[in-house]
Each structure stands twice: as C-alpha cells, then as structure tokens.
C-alpha cells in the first residue's frame, strides 16, 4: 500500500527554522531502519512489495521516498528523508537534496562491491551539490565475514571527498546518532 508521504507544508525546507537531512544509498542497506533510529518513530513510507530479489529479511522496498521527523530541543523540526535506492528514481535526488544540511550514505557490507557503491553514491551526491557534507555508514558487517573497510576508504580517497566512514547497526539509536555526530563534526 502506498501511503501519502507528507503534508505539503513540511516541504518548505528553505526556511532556516527547519533542518533537513537526507539518507541515500542502495536498496536494502537500511535507510528506512536508520530513519526510525533517528526519529524514534516509524517513518512514513512509500514501500511496495519487491517483484524481484525478495528475501526472508526484506520483501518490500521504498519506491519514492521515506519520511520521518523529530523535533530539536528548541522546537526546530528535523525532517529526515530516505532516497529510493533504485536508479529509475534518480530524478528524485536533486529534489530531495534541495535545502538539506547533510547526507548520510548508507551502504550494505553484504553487497559484493561495496566500494563501487560507495564511489557511485559519492559521485551522485557531488554531481548535484559538491559542497554538501556527507557521512558514510556501512551496515550488516556482522553478516559479511569477508567485509573489509579498506576498499571503502580507497573509494573515498579516489573521490577526493574525505568523508567519515563508520560501520554501524542501523537498528541501534546510539550508533546511528554517533554517525550523525561524525557528520556534524566534519561540518564544524
């Protein structure tokens, strides 16, 4: 079932009193889970059953975007958007990144070529906005005995965009917050 993503008024992110964060990355990496950890609530999702590649763990995918929100201490709304991972929704990316203060790229350690994914998403983001602060979170490292962080670091060096890269558990609120701290530290 497709649910309505949000009220139109919440899209007014040019307003300095609204903080907008975007989560990007391939399908199945854990963006929706990370939004839940950041916002403490189930995100409003536009999830559809997977027609291909469904598994016991994942039988739906985000087809347009995920949305969650939290409120900062002074009442400022924090809007968190999850980009759809599929390339056919690439047209959504510039729209979602408009007005964002930063991007969290979430990669899946189980992917055969996680470094290629890293390069791809860094390239995608910088092509839209080269100055946007970025942090990389790598999930599911417990499920990949062969995972190595070094190729991801090499991809980051190749991109010329020296961003933090942390392995983390998207279900863990503290680890997801720590990823956000690295993003903020890099912005300071």
């Amino acid at each position, binding site marked *: 079932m497709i649910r309505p993503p949000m009220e139109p008024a919440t899209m007014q992110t040019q307003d*300095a009193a609204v*903080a907008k964060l975007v989560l990007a990355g391939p399908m199945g990496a854990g963006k929706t889970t990370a939004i839940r950890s950041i916002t403490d609530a189930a995100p409003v999702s536009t999830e559809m059953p997977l027609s291909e590649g469904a598994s016991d763990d994942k039988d739906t995918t985000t087809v347009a975007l995920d949305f969650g929100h*939290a409120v*900062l*201490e*002074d009442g*400022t709304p*924090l809007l968190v958007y999850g980009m759809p991972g599929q390339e056919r929704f690439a047209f959504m990316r510039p729209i979602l990144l408009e007005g964002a*203060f930063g991007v969290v790229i979430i990669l899946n350690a189980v992917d055969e070529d996680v470094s290629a994914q890293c390069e791809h998403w860094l390239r995608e983001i910088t092509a839209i906005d080269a*100055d*946007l*602060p970025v942090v990389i*979170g*790598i999930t599911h*490292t*417990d499920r990949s*005995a*062969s*995972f*190595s*962080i*070094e190729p991801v*670091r090499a991809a*980051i*060096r190749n991109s*010329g965009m*020296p*961003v*933090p*890269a*942390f*392995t*983390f*558990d998207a279900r863990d609120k*503290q*680890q997801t*917050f*720590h*990823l*956000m*701290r*690295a993003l*903020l*530290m*890099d*912005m*300071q």
Partner: protein
Amino acid sequence: MNIELKYTALAHADERRVRLAANALAAHHLVVHASDWNGGHCDVLVTDSRDRQGALALERARLAQIPTLDVCARDNRNGETGASVVWLVRSLHRLLREQPIAAGAEQAAGGARRPGLVELVIRGDLAGQPVLARHGSISVGLLPRTGRVLSHTLGDALHARSHLGAPGWQFQALKDAAAQQAPGEILTSLDTFFMEGAWRARTQLPRFADGQYRLRDWPDLGSATELIEVLPIVRALLRERAGIADIARSSRRSEQEVSACLWALAASNILLGGKSGGEYLVQAPAPARRNHGMWSRLAIHFGLTRSG
C-alpha cells in the same frame, strides 16, 4: 662490547658504507654486527629519512627508544651523495658512547613489561600485518587490512580491549592464510577496539613520541558511541599536520588524551608521521554551508554538545 646495528631504507652504496663503518668500529673496541632491520629491537638503527620507509622507521625507532642515525643528518656534509665511511664511524661512535646499550635479554623483558598497545605499535615487524594477540588465556586476531578484530566470543574481545594498557601481551604475525583462521567468528571494528582500549588506559600509556602527525583516513568509530571526546581529536588530525600540544589546543582535550588517541591510531596503521606526504587533508566546508545556530541545535540533539 657487542653491538647490534640495524639498517633500513638505505641506498645500496650507503648500506655498504654502513657495513664498512661497523667493521671499522672495532678500532674503538666495539664489536658491531650490522644487518637489515626487521622492526625488532636493536642497539642502533641507521636509515635515510628522505625515503618514506626510512622516515617511518625513524618514527618507530624513536617510539621504541632505539638510538638512530639518519644518513642525511645536517652535520653530514656529504649528505647529498650519501654518508661517508668516516662520518659514519664518527657518528656511530659518538652515538654509542652517549647511549647506554641495553642487553638483549633486558630488551626482551622490557617488551613483556610494556602495555600491550605500546608493544604492538613499536614492533615494526608487525606494522600492517595480521596479528594473533594473546593475553593470558584470551586470544584475538587483529586484522588491519580488513579493519576487523576476530575473537571467539564478544567477551574475549571486550577482555582484550580492557587490557590493552596492561603488560603481558604476546604478539605473533600471521601469514595471510593463517589470518583467515584467526580465532573465532565474532567480528568487531579494529579502530574502535584500539580507540576504546587506549582511551580506557590513557593514564597508563606513556606519552606518544613528539612529532608532527596527521590521519590518512577517518577511523571507523561507528560503535564507539561513548567516545564523543575523541571526535574533535580525529577532526584536528585530519585537518592539519600537528604536534601533540597543537592538537590538544585545537580539540580542547588534554595532551594525555591526544597521546592515547595517537597510540590507538598508530596501532590501526592509519596515522602518518609528518615527513611523509601526498595524501589530502580534509578541507573545512564552504562558508556558505555554515549555519552556526542550526549546527548547535543539531549538535545538542545528537549528543555532540550539551545545551546551555
């Protein structure tokens, strides 16, 4: 007196001259055995700091408190074309006269008495290698190429991490094939393992050698959620090549805390000494991106800073 002289990263001609100088030191009643350095203990190390490997060897030797001779030292007038035998004999004689030479047995015992993290860093033969680390009945595999720690149980990894500041560790380099069979199936982040261990042991660790340092990459501290204080130190090391006091000032942490981080980052093999170069430093974000008010609100929300 028997002296173990080691050399590394020397041009072929310099290596020959060092061997000749070592023999010539017999005139000063010094029996000097010269051979290639494997990263272990020795009485004196000769190297060339113009070479990147040589510069790293100098750093490691300084950490291990091994007397060193740099063939491109300022007082070597022949420095451009290499070290002369006469200069080498004079310099080595002066160096060996000034430095008390510890017996090999004492050196080995010193290794066992040092905190495990320190021993791991100063053992140049272990740098960047997969290592089997044992402390009492606990063993963990340290795999720097993948950035992971392997252990039988999470409890083993936690025990090992908690004792990194303690002596009594044994380290053994593993061949790549053996590394695949390092103990256990529990994988955790190597950078987090070292950083949490070093932070916990920061009052026990000696001060890291003075020098100019910087970081090659962001360490993987994703599960080090308690170590918020480390993030400003990491950022400072990514932004500038600096000494301990400068890093402490810019990150607003103590020199002891900076020193502990340097031990951890050196163990992770991502710390660069000031003399090697080439890699990028992190650039500060464009001014237009800075919105201090919003940043502060986000920092409070995510627990990076406190309100008020």
